């Protein structure tokens, strides 16, 4: 806990100089720690001269930021229109039988729908069979 508090303070010092430093800082923390620990808001607030409530308000506004560790691997399935037209609903139902899935809205892979990301790696034209084989590889 102490370690991460020091590390957050470090990152805050590194990014604090930028105009509009809050988002880059939150990204840096989440990229490194996998999520934004609850204790972070206070440390960030102090470093950037904001109130903790403001910092928490920003964290909760954005879908990308999370305050709890993510499932591993992190599976994000696109649920927007283009992927719907190619069966993303069935894919989602299939995937949810075996793992935690985070719905996202468009990955820019709409010409090769349905699409998903597994730990940041894009996959396209994902049939239930392809989903199973991607997950098998991710687990090994």
């Amino acid at each position, binding site marked *: 806990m102490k370690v991460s508090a020091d590390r957050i303070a470090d990152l805050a010092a590194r990014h604090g100089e930028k105009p509009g430093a809050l988002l880059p800082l939150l990204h840096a923390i989440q990229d490194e720690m996998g999520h934004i620990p609850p204790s972070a808001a206070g440390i960030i607030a102090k470093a950037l001269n904001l109130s903790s409530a403001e910092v928490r308000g920003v964290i909760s506004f*954005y879908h990308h930021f999370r305050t709890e560790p993510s499932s591993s691997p992190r599976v994000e399935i696109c649920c927007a229109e283009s992927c719907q037209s190619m069966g993303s609903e069935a894919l989602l139902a299939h995937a949810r039988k075996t793992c935690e899935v985070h719905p996202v809205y468009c990955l820019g892979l709409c010409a*090769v729908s349905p699409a998903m990301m597994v730990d940041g790696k894009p996959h396209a034209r994902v049939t239930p069979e392809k989903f199973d084989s991607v997950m098998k590889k991710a687990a090994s």
Partner: protein
Amino acid sequence: MSVPIYVPVDSAALALGADEVASAIAGEAQKRGIAIRLVRNGSRGMFWLEPLVEVETQQGRIAYGPVGPGDVKGLFDAGFESGGSHDLSLGPTEEIPYLKKQERLTFARVGIIDPLSLEDYLACAGYQGLRRAVSLSPAGIVQEITESGLRGRGGAAFPTGIKWNTVLQAEADRKYVVCNADEGDSGTFADRMLMEGDPYSLIEGMTIAALAVGATQGYIYVRSEYPHAVATLNRAISIAKDAGYLGSDILGSGKSFELEVRKAAGAYVCGEETAMLESIEGKRGIVRAKPPLPALYGLFGKPTAINNVISLATVPVIMARGAEFYRHYGMGRSRGTLPFQLAGNIKRGGLVEKAFGVTLREMLYDFGGGTASGLPVRAVQVGGPLGSYLPDSQWDVAMDYEEYSAIFAVLGHGGIVVHDETADLARLARYAMDFCAIESCGKCTPCRIGSVRGVEVMDRIIAGERNQIGLLRELCDTMLYGSMCAMGGMTPYPVLSALNHFPEDFGVAGERHA
């Protein structure tokens, strides 16, 4: 001499296994003692053929695709490194009809060059626009862009030259150029392809914009769903800076311009320009009231030129070849070309850059080849999640901003999402309301409350309560006319177009509206 072999690094190609293909090619070439030079290019935008491998031959580039890692051995057996014929042969890339029929101005280099090679960029007319711009006055650059007829490609189609002129005329100690690369619309990927495939064109366009309006700092706000675009842009910016195309004293002009990438955080509404500014400032992405215009009171309260990726990446070709060259393409008040994106249930999905005036039917059939499922096309959503669903009877309307507006539709960012006859338009209308409820910034009631009510009403309609249709129309009216921005203000486009053109899905067959 080593043979250049191209395997795309575009995210969509990667999602179909391009990295595995690239390493299989490298491995096989080594095993056979064949000297190759592997180039990781952007995508040509023919995604049903990805991973599309190209080989440089005396007859030009020859294409093979879609290539899987398992095909590589056979390709070498067929002598593909010298253009040998194989089951996956597609012939000369430029002769593939899908590409040949396009008018690629903004996407002229995408898929052709190594995205990070400044040498490639310069060899393909790169930085000619900036060279011309530094020889002109700021007002001279603005005039050229105004005369080209370029209108914003992010959705609202506002004339770019007029916007720049407002920023140029504003007095301030500091001004900004901000590129909107939040590309949240389903069915769109042109910004992504351009940033991954030709990042210098965006950087050059922003630099020209900065010279035109008098800005010294720029930001590119890229959605977090695009990690590859972020990485490519960051590397390109540092290379451009080392070569003197960014930083202080650009091309000896005495002017300076710094550029930074800012990563968004997954909120659709942050694509709205004022919400985006709030986000860059480190706040929640809440839409600002207009006026004041961001052109006068924008980022950190300073005059700011905000443009979409495609608008900015089109600026270099306009400056290099002249306003007259560009405005020669298109029709009416829609000048130039639009990079359309064919997506969803389509056989040949991809990027199609065409002059305005092409029809949706040409897009769907001449380019797209019909649905991927093989079933008839039923409904096509044009212009993203806030765009209308178009039925067969509207597919011959020219794709032009004004013609589309006359049929209660929009071109938006050029996304085309195809649905086959299994689509349920009532469910898609419900989704549109739900998306608005999830993504609303919450600032105004018609959008925040209206969308939640909209989902409830749609649920009742889907459950068979036909008397709710009147209520749905009233709700749409309130959102259309009472919302502060297009999020709430345009959610009625998909909803009402679905209801008017596909009433049978709402249980009210025979009540067709215009």
